[in-house]
């Protein structure tokens, strides 16, 4: 892939949103731990990342030290958990966690002893990362529990192990959602660490070019990175300011803006030789490799008209959000909604008694006047505004129509799964239709159907196996019989051909039967007629698609 040095591209659609970042950037970053005594409880969910859950290594009553491994990663796509402070494990149980479903999840609860004492079993600091090979860096990132800090929380070690050669390594500092300023803060305060982290990631992935993308409305972050780097483009690293259009910070959108290339819908950035990491992740990688520090804290923006002194804080993982709010002066009277993440893609929390986890970038305590009032939706007037702003260049009005009609097949024809749920469409919709909600619903429905389908596939396969086994037994019997017969015959006239013929015939029968079952036997009896038809239609479409490919 050829990189055009300083040109920037556009993606379709997007929005200019009021940024409200100044709200939380007036006060300086508050370093961890909070100046107040440590929180009374630290709650660490066993799963703070995308992938498989971790395995608990401690039990209630155990003393743990800061940085100690308390839940290990057995699977490949997994990130271990470390105690973020020293204290006693008081519970390993289901606790409220920040999740859109509002469900509880298994957590380790630690009662801090207040000493914040480090373990002496930390991995060694490796300041000379230039000497390191990719495997060592990956192992270190994995051992230290690093996950993507841009919000997705995908285990970083997996992303440091690219299956394709990397051409362009992008550090995403384009924090495009309103209100959130944790990356901005990090870039202003820890530019050196970010650059070192970038170099380590480059070392691990052997990327040619590195680009750090910063939004145009973060001049201070830009200056501080520039100072740390010693210019705009030094030693294969370029700092680029990208236009402030929501959602420029979306991975695929940012790649388009910087390289002009679109990541294929069914592919990964890797497929076009690009790797994208968040600036916070780079810093965490730096700390893990050069300082041997596992991931114990992160910067969180606490902001919105619902909190008295919005600011950025460095917070120990597991700290209850209520403590952060308290550290920011408490709620104002007009607080209405508590959102983890930004106002466009974040999800509303039921309670502030949930812990900060690795993916908590922002806690938005929104005041009444900052968020939408629940209002009735009107019918779609087909104005096409949604399509004008959709960064995935979909036709949201058609997606809405078919989601509403539960025509899942059609929603996929209109590329439902390319929707990044950015909310641009709903924001501009004059009919006030909760469009994104419909798309989420349709996606879950499709997944559920796929699961049903998978279950029926498994049942079908089981059925086929059984048929095959029965046939095999039959065949074996026939063979035995034939052999016996042949032996008898051999005894008579020493000719062994019939046995072979019998085996041949039996094999033929198996084949014929197998072909027949493949066409018919689908275990879809327990589905309704409509579901069955839909599955059949989807199946057909898939086959057609495969044929045309």
């Amino acid at each position, binding site marked *: 892939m050829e990189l055009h040095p300083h040109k920037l591209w556009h993606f379709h659609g997007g929005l200019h949103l009021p940024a409200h970042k100044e709200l939380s950037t007036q006060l300086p970053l508050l370093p961890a731990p909070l100046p107040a005594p440590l929180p009374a409880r630290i709650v660490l969910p066993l799963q703070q990342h995308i992938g498989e859950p971790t395995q608990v290594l401690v039990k209630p009553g155990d003393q743990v030290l800061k940085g100690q491994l308390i839940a290990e990663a057995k699977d490949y796509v997994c990130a271990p958990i470390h105690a973020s402070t020293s204290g006693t494990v008081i519970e390993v149980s289901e606790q409220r966690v920040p999740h859109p479903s509002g469900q509880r999840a298994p957590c380790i609860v630690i009662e801090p002893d207040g000493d914040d004492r480090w373990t002496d079993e930390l991995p060694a600091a490796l300041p000379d990362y230039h000497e390191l090979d990719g495997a060592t860096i990956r192992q270190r990132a994995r051992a230290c529990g690093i996950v993507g800090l841009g919000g997705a929380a995908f285990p970083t070690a997996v992303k440091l192990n690219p299956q394709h050669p990397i051409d362009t390594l992008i550090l995403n500092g384009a924090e495009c959602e309103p209100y959130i300023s944790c990356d901005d803060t990090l870039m202003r305060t820890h530019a050196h660490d970010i650059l070192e982290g970038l170099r380590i990631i480059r070392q691990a992935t052997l990327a040619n070019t590195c680009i750090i993308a910063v939004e145009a409305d973060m001049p201070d972050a830009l200056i501080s990175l520039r100072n740390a780097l010693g210019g705009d483009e030094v030693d294969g690293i370029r700092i680029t300011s990208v236009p402030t259009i929501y959602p420029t910070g979306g991975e695929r959108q940012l790649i388009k803006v910087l390289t002009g290339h679109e990541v294929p819908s069914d592919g990964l950035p890797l497929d076009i030789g690009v790797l994208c990491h968040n600036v916070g992740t780079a810093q965490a990688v730096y700390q893990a490799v050069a300082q041997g520090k596992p991931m114990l804290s992160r910067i969180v923006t606490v902001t919105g008209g619902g909190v008295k002194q919005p600011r950025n804080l460095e917070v120990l993982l597991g700290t209850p959000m209520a403590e952060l709010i308290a550290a920011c002066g408490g709620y104002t009277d007009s607080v209405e909604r508590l*959102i983890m993440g930004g106002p466009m893609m974040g999800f509303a929390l039921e309670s502030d008694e949930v812990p900060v986890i690795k993916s908590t970038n922002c806690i938005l305590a929104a005041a009444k006047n900052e968020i939408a009032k629940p209002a009735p939706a009107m019918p779609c*007037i087909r104005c096409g505004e949604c399509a004008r702003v959709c960064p995935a260049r979909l036709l949201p009005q058609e997606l809405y129509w078919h989601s509403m009609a539960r025509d899942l097949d059609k929603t996929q024809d209109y590329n439902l799964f390319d929707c990044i749920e950015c909310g641009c469409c709903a924001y501009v919709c004059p009919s006030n239709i909760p469009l994104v909600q419909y798309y989420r619903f349709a996606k879950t429905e499709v997944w559920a159907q796929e699961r049903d389908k998978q279950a029926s596939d498994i049942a079908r396969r089981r059925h086929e196996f059984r048929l095959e086994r029965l046939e095999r037994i039959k065949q074996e019997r026939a063979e035995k019989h034939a052999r016996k017969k042949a032996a008898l015959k051999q005894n008579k006239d020493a000719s062994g051909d019939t046995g072979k013929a019998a085996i041949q015939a039996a094999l033929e029968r198996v084949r014929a039967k197998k072909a027949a079952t493949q066409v018919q036997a689908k275990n879809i009896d327990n589905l309704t007629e409509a579901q069955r038809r839909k599955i059949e239609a989807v199946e057909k479409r898939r086959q057609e698609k495969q044929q045309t490919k």
Partner: protein
Amino acid sequence: MHFNTLTSPHLAPTSSVAGVMRQVIYALVPGTVAMIWYFGWGVLINLVIGVTVALVTEAIMLYLRKRPIALFLSDFSAVVTAWLLVLALPPLAPWWLITIGVAFSLVIAKHLYGGLGYNPFNPAMAGYVVLLISFPVEMTTWLAPRMLAETQLGFLETLTAVFTGQLPAGISWDAITAATPLDSMRTQLGLNQTIDEIRTSPLWGDFGGKGWEWIGNWFLLGGLWLLYKRVINWRIPVSMLTALFIIASVLYLSDPDTHPLPAFHIFSGGAILGAFFIATDPVSASTTPFGRIIYGASIGLLVFIIRTWGGYPDGVAFAVLLMNMAVPAIDHFTKPRSFGHKSYGD
């Protein structure tokens, strides 16, 4: 502390259906005032009748369909429909004509199809065409613009005319009516007159008919404001007027004696009103970017074809309705290429 949860996005939307419709109404005001100025009180009286009938009909239909009346009445969509229909009616149209037209637009063309957002045809144009076919005489009795009329009716006289069909003593229909420019253009062409001969008549202004061309300008102003406000998208009006202009130019250049100037087509009849206010009705128009170009350009072509070779003087209403029928097909074949896909359907 506990909070209510609602799903993202959390920011309040920036526009509303009522807001959109209100802006359309504002944009119609300059052209409407111009019409009142050139054609007298009849336009205003018609408008009041039309809007009143629209609100009552809409309320009844919402009640019958068990829909929230206040919510939907206050979206102003019925007002816009009535307003557009009234602008297309002759200034002294009798009250019952307006009532039938508006009622048809809303009951049949809108609510029987499922109400706001579901109507495949532009309701105002559906109402207009039904009136044109059913009451051709009333629908083609146009007034002369003020500079050409022998006399002008006062407010009360107009009111009487609208409600009783009686003109004041001493004034004949002939004295106040005149053919529309499009109408007279086609009649005269039918009499084998050349364009130059036709244009010697006092009826004509710089591009189109006197008075009419100015009304067109005021609607254009409103339309441009809607574009500026991003209430409408440029694709449909631009492609419609461009297509109309190009085909009119081609024929004008090929035979200037029998084909009027392209500007005449743009500034006569409902071309500008149609381009900015009628063809852009979101519900019945194409919604894909390229589809809108096809939709608009096809309307422009059809308008020209109907005006030149069809049986009716103006073709905007027919062209819009015909293309309304084509919208599902247009939308289907002009889906944009989604991000990360090589082509549509990939």
